[in-house]
């Protein structure tokens, strides 16, 4: 809980700082404009969904580097099926769902049954799905043109707020809320969530306690790839067209960064869904800041993001160490038995 407050504090600080530097001091309204705020929420929601997915894998002590390429495969594949091959909508959606869940299943099987390292499996996935997508699309941009407006409103639409004009809750935010609540219930209120945390903490001990650890790990990869697929659908609905060469590039790293900022340890066994969502929001506000604040050159974006993540993780580690030391001196001391 303290951790969530901490990351929320950072989010607030960056948010207010950006407002200050981009709007108040230059005396204009770009950051706080309805358009920008709505867009910020929309992007946060989209990245939040894929970040929740990777959080499950990170909690097991694994990693998924293929997310960006899965976003690309699904994001290009869906318009390819709908616009180019004229598949009926339900069939196309079922197909992309099956493909993304299938990818997760294959990753999970390779990690558990073949005992391959998650890093290697999903790094190969990163290359493989991108290559496949560029192959079947022949590098042609995929999009919906003027069609499928209703379907696209899943990402572009908004739910109007009563008594507020010109500003609505973007649809992806509603989807994120549903995904987040379900993920949070699963992680904290069911035995399976407990099993995931337990095996992330110590896989061998979990196995020795009668937990089918392989099955739980496979499930985590399926959730991750499934949410990456959902993300791919929503991302392409949002922007309308996708280029196979770079659609979803680096998204896995933004997702992993959000999860880590949100309190997931790459050693496994730790993480909260709310923290991950706040982490995703922080990433988007940061990117927004770099775009809008004149003093920051656009081209050092990655350097700033890298520095902020590193700082956040270091501070967290220091705080943890101090807390552990304090605990050592109180609590159990003086008990010789």
């Amino acid at each position, binding site marked *: 809980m303290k951790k969530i407050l901490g990351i929320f504090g950072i989010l607030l600080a960056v948010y207010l700082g950006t407002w200050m530097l981009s709007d108040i001091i230059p005396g204009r309204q770009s950051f706080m404009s309805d358009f920008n705020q709505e867009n910020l929420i929309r992007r946060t929601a989209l990245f939040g969904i894929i970040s929740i997915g990777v959080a499950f894998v990170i909690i097991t002590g694994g990693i998924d580097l293929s997310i960006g390429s899965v976003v690309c495969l699904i994001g290009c594949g869906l318009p390819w099926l709908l616009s180019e091959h004229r598949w009926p909508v339900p069939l196309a959606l079922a197909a992309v769902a099956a493909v993304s869940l299938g990818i997760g299943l294959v990753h999970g099987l390779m990690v558990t049954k073949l005992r391959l390292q998650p890093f290697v499996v999903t790094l190969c996935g990163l290359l493989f799905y991108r290559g496949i997508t560029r192959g079947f699309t022949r590098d042609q941009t995929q999009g919906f043109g003027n069609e499928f407006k209703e379907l696209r409103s899943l990402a572009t639409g908004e739910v109007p707020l009563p008594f507020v004009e010109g500003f609505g809750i973007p649809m992806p935010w509603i989807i994120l809320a549903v995904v987040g609540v379900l993920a949070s219930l699963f992680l904290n*209120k*069911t*035995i*399976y969530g*407990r*099993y995931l*945390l*337990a095996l992330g*903490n*110590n896989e*061998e*001990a*979990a*196995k*020795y*306690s*009668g*937990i*089918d650890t392989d099955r739980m790990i496979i499930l985590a990869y399926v959730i991750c790839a499934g949410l990456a697929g959902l993300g791919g659908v929503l991302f392409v609905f949002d922007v309308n067209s996708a280029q196979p060469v770079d659609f979803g590039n680096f998204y896995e790293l933004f997702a992993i960064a959000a999860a880590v900022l949100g309190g997931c340890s790459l050693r496994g*066994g*730790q993480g909260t869904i709310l923290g991950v969502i706040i982490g995703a929001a922080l990433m988007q506000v940061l990117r927004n800041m770099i775009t809008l604040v004149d003093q920051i050159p656009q081209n050092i974006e990655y350097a700033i993001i890298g520095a902020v993540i590193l700082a956040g993780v270091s501070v967290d580690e220091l705080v943890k160490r101090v807390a552990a030391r304090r*605990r*050592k001196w109180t*609590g*159990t*001391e003086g*008990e*010789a*038995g």
Partner: protein
Amino acid sequence: MDTDADSPLLQVSGICKSFPGVRALHEVEFTLGRGEVHAVIGENGAGKSTLMKILAGVQPPDRGEIRIEGRPVTIDSVDAALNLRIALIHQELNLAGNLGVGANVFLGREPTRLGLIDEGVIRRESKTFLDMVGLSVDPATVVGSLTVGRQQMVEIAKALSIDARILIMDEPTSSLSQHETKQLFTVIKDLRSRGVSIVYISHRLGEVKELADRVTVLRDGENAGGLSRDEINHDSMVRMMVGRDISQFYQHEQHAPGEMALEVSGLRTPAHPETTLDFSLRAGEVVGIAGLVGAGRTELLETLFGVAPALQGEVRVAGEVLELRNPIDAIRAGIALVPEDRKRQGLLLEMAVRENLSLASLRRDKRRGGFLNRSSEREITSEMIERLNVKTPGDRQIVRFLSGGNQQKVVLGKWLAMKPAVLLLDEPTRGIDVGAKREIYGLMEQLAKSGVAILFVSSELEEILGMADRALVMHEGRITGEIARADLSEEAVMRLATGGDAMAAAG
């Protein structure tokens, strides 16, 4: 006091050291003379290893003084210890298994020429040290390909290469064959005659009797006494180590065994596929498995628990034939295992006491669609904390911060919550203090009384002699004999454990 030729080579006084929840050493005194083999003995958790780690600079003491030849010294790092020519040979060997013998001898101090490692010098010089320990292998041989006994000789050669005058050996024979042990003794005696002082830690009293010039006994982190050469005998050592009548410490009483609980026939484990195992256990029986490290005892328990499924053979619990492919199968049949290495296989160290205690029983919540039943979880947890007398500030305490004994109680509690019919315990009291030990024996006793069949592996003979209704002795994957409580003695167990005659083998 200044430097003085008459002062002992090493003198330690008033050493104190605490870990969270445990007082490991309290006002410990220790003196080591030149060219002396000085044994330090004591039960597990008595503080032997901590004292040695302090001498070798692995851990700093909280308080106390260390003098070498009368001069006070500070040993705050392994480097400092090496500069004082003190070398520690660890229980688990510290060698780079992928490198050659010579490279290991000079690891960290490689002779160089023009900035490159000088293989020629390594080859020539390591050869001399290898000769000193009677190891005739090519210095280029990869260490990982040697037997454990020979690897240990490499460690000793490494110590000699820094011209160590104090050599600390922590349980050096725990994984050696009899033949290798003999060789080690020859080397130790040879080193002594060269003037090297040796601190020898062991709980094999026979070895101590053969080697030691002097014995220091530790108990519960304090000095429990010392013995000079002519006072060293088995009884005096045991009395000092235990500090009380053994019969009082082990509260075991035999009761009428019940129904057949566990029957094992023709079992082949993956670790020792060449042998078959047959034995049985009745409800309420406590059976100990004795043997040397590597005799296949842990592997037997792991096969019974489904971690390493059997290649062949039959296991029955309460008459029913089981297929044990994984721990889930075993748990369903009422078999529970408290593993040897609780930190690796028993505990979620970074999680709370509550989450550890409930872990194995959560499966019952599958009936509720997998949703956790928090109130029943809290109930089980507080019941177990009370029943096992787990000393913890609360059930949200992270397990890592508990003492070894309380951690072990948490592992036990995890299984008691599911009421096992057969309880397998692998070294149930390793590394825990005497108080917790007694509580765990009490608990085993209480479980046996309530009809649980208990099968435990132990390397501590006292524990086998004190707790078992009967003992199975293993050697190189085979059960070499079975000894009834009335006939249990240290000699009888050791003879079978070292592969001596199998005359006591009975059905």
